[in-house]
C-alpha cells in the first residue's frame, strides 16, 4: 500500500460522520439523558433520575399503548411469517405468469404506507367496498364499523400492515427458496407426499433461518408501527388502537414533554433490543446444532 497522509481517510468519512454525529449519535445519547429529566417545551429540564419511568408504570394511557403494541406485534408477526411463505411457494413454480404474479404481489411494498392506509381507509368505511364484498360472500350479515368500532379498529390496522408487508417478505422467502433443491420435492412427490406434506417436511425445515429473519424484521417493524395507526384511526376510537410510537408522538412532539416521551422511547428501544437479541440467539443455536 502506498503511503498516504493520515487525514485522507477522515476526509472521505467527514460528510457521513457529520450527519451521523449530529442527527444520529448525538440524539441517541441525548435520548438517554432526556429520559432522566423533566424537560418540557423550551425549558431544559432538571435531573429527576428514574421518576419518568415510575410515572410511566402508573400512566394508564401508556399501559394501554404498550398493551396495544403487544397485541399488534403478537398478531401481525405470525401472519407475516406464514402468509408470505405460502405466497412464495405459490409463485416459485416454473409455470406461465409467475413473474407477473410476483411483480404484482410486490406492488404494495412500493406504494407508501400512507397510500396503503388511504386505500384501505376508503375500503374499510362502514359504507365501503370491503363490507359490501363480505356481505355479498355471506360472511357478514350487515355492515361493520371496521375503523369506528373500538373492538375492531386495531385489528383493521393489523390487517393493513399485513397486506402491505406480504410482498416484501415474499421476496425474502423467494431468495431462500432458491436453496431448496428441486430433487427433494420431486422425490417426495413420487413417494406420494402431498403439497402440504412437502411444504411441512421439506420447505419449512430448510427455510427455518429465513423464517427467523422474517420474524425478527416483522417484529421490529411491528413494535414501532406509526403511520397506519395515525392515518387509519388516529389511535382511536377512545385510544383503542393507539400503540407506542403514536403515544410517544402525542406526548413528545404534540405535547412537548421531551423528558417523559424520551423515557417511553427508552422502553421502545428495550423492546427492539429484546427482539434483536432473541433473533441472534435463535440463529446461533441453529448454527451450532
Amino acid at each position, binding site marked *: 500500500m502506498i503511503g498516504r497522509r493520515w487525514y485522507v*481517510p*477522515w476526509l472521505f468519512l467527514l460528510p457521513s460522520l457529520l450527519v451521523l454525529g449530529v442527527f*444520529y449519535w448525538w*440524539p441517541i445519547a441525548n435520548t438517554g439523558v432526556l429520559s432522566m429529566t423533566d424537560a418540557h417545551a423550551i425549558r431544559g429540564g432538571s435531573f429527576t433520575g428514574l421518576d419518568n419511568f415510575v410515572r410511566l408504570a402508573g400512566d394508564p394511557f401508556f399501559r394501554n399503548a404498550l398493551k396495544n403494541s403487544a397485541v399488534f406485534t403478537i398478531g401481525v408477526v405470525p401472519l407475516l411469517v406464514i402468509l408470505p411463505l405460502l405466497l412464495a411457494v405459490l409463485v416459485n413454480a416454473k409455470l406461465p405468469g409467475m413473474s407477473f404474479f410476483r411483480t404484482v404481489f410486490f406492488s404494495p411494498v412500493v406504494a407508501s404506507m400512507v*397510500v396503503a392506509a388511504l386505500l384501505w381507509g376508503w375500503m374499510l368505511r362502514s359504507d365501503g367496498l370491503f363490507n359490501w364484498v363480505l356481505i355479498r360472500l355471506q360472511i357478514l350479515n350487515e355492515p361493520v364499523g371496521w375503523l369506528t368500532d373500538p373492538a375492531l379498529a386495531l385489528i383493521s390496522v393489523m390487517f393493513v400492515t399485513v397486506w402491505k408487508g406480504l410482498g416484501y417478505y415474499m421476496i425474502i422467502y423467494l431468495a431462500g427458496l432458491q436453496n431448496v*433443491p428441486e430433487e427433494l420435492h420431486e422425490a417426495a412427490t413420487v413417494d406420494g407426499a402431498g403439497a402440504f406434506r412437502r411444504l411441512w417436511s421439506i420447505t419449512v425445515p430448510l427455510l427455518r433461518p429465513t423464517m427467523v429473519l422474517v420474524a425478527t424484521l416483522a417484529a421490529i417493524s411491528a413494535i414501532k408501527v406509526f403511520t397506519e395507526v395515525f392515518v387509519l384511526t388516529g389511535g382511536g376510537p377512545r385510544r383503542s388502537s393507539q400503540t407506542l410510537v403514536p403515544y410517544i408522538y402525542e406526548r413528545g412532539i404534540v405535547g412537548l414533554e421531551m423528558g417523559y416521551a424520551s423515557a417511553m422511547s427508552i422502553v*421502545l428501544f428495550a423492546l427492539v433490543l429484546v427482539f434483536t437479541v432473541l433473533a441472534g440467539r435463535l440463529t446461533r443455536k441453529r448454527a451450532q446444532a
Partner: protein
Amino acid sequence: MSATTRQPPKAGRPRSVASPAQRGTKARVAAGIGGRYVLLLVVLAVTVGPFAWQVSTSLKGLGENIFAFPPQLVPDEPTLRNYARVAEAIPLWRYLGNSTIVATAVTLTNCLFGAMAGYALARMRFRGRNALFAAMIATLIIPFEVIMISVFLVTRGLGLINTLAGAMLPLAISVLSIFIMRQAFLALPREVEEAARVDGAGEWQTFWRIGLPSVRGSLAVVAIFSFMFAWDDFLWPLIVLRDPQNFTLTVGLVFLENQFSADQRLVAAGTVISIIPVLALFVFLQRQFFRGVGQAAVKG
C-alpha cells in the same frame, strides 16, 4: 444464511419408467396447478382490488354516486376533472415538487457520502477504523422512532424546522448505505486501483474514476432504496414540516384526507397521482428492487 446451502443427498430413483403410482401423480399435479392458479387469482384480487377501486373512485364524476349499491368498478362517465380539482384544493404540484427535491437530495447524498465512507472503510488502513465501524454497526439497530424527540430538538436548535433541508438532513446518510458500499468495495480486486495510483492518480481521482464505476450495481441498490425510503417517509416530515405550503406528498395526502374526507373523489385522485412516480420507477428497475430487498434484509 449458510445453513440453508447444505445439499441433501439426491434421490437415486429412476424417473424414466412410468409406474401406475406416477400416472396418479400426474393427475394430482394437474389438479395442483389448477388450485395454484385459483389461489394466485384470489391473492391478486386482494392485492390489486384496493388500487383499482381508488382509480375507479378518482374517475367518477360529481353526478355519480360513489356509494352506489352495488358498487360500480367502471365509472358511468369517466372524467379527469377530479385530477384538476385536487390541484385546486391543495398545492399538490408543490407537494410533488417538495417530495422530488427531498428524495432526490437524499438519494444523491446516500450514494456519494455512502460510497466515500464505504471506500475509506474498505480500502484505507487507518487508526480507529475498526472502532468506527463497530460503532456504526452497534447503533444500526436503533431505529429513528426511538430517537425522534431528540432529532426534533437538534433540528429545532439548528433552525431547520419547517424547511426542506430539515426534512432531508437526518436522512442524508444511513449506516446501511455505508455498509452496502463498504461490502461492494471489499469485493473489488485491488490491482486496478494500485495501478492507477502508480500512474500518479490522487486518492480522490482513484476513487472517482476507478472505484465508483466498478460498484455501479450497489450504487443502484442504495439509490433505489434511499429514494423510495425518502419518498415514502411520513413520520419525520410530519414532525418537521409545519406549514402546509412545505409539506411533502405523504404529509400532504393525509392533510388532504383530513380536509376533504367528505369528497373521496379528490382524495382518490391525489392518491393515484402520488403512486405513479414510484410505480414507474419500480416497473423500470424491477430487478434492482428485488436484489435490493435481499441485500437490505440480510444486513438489516
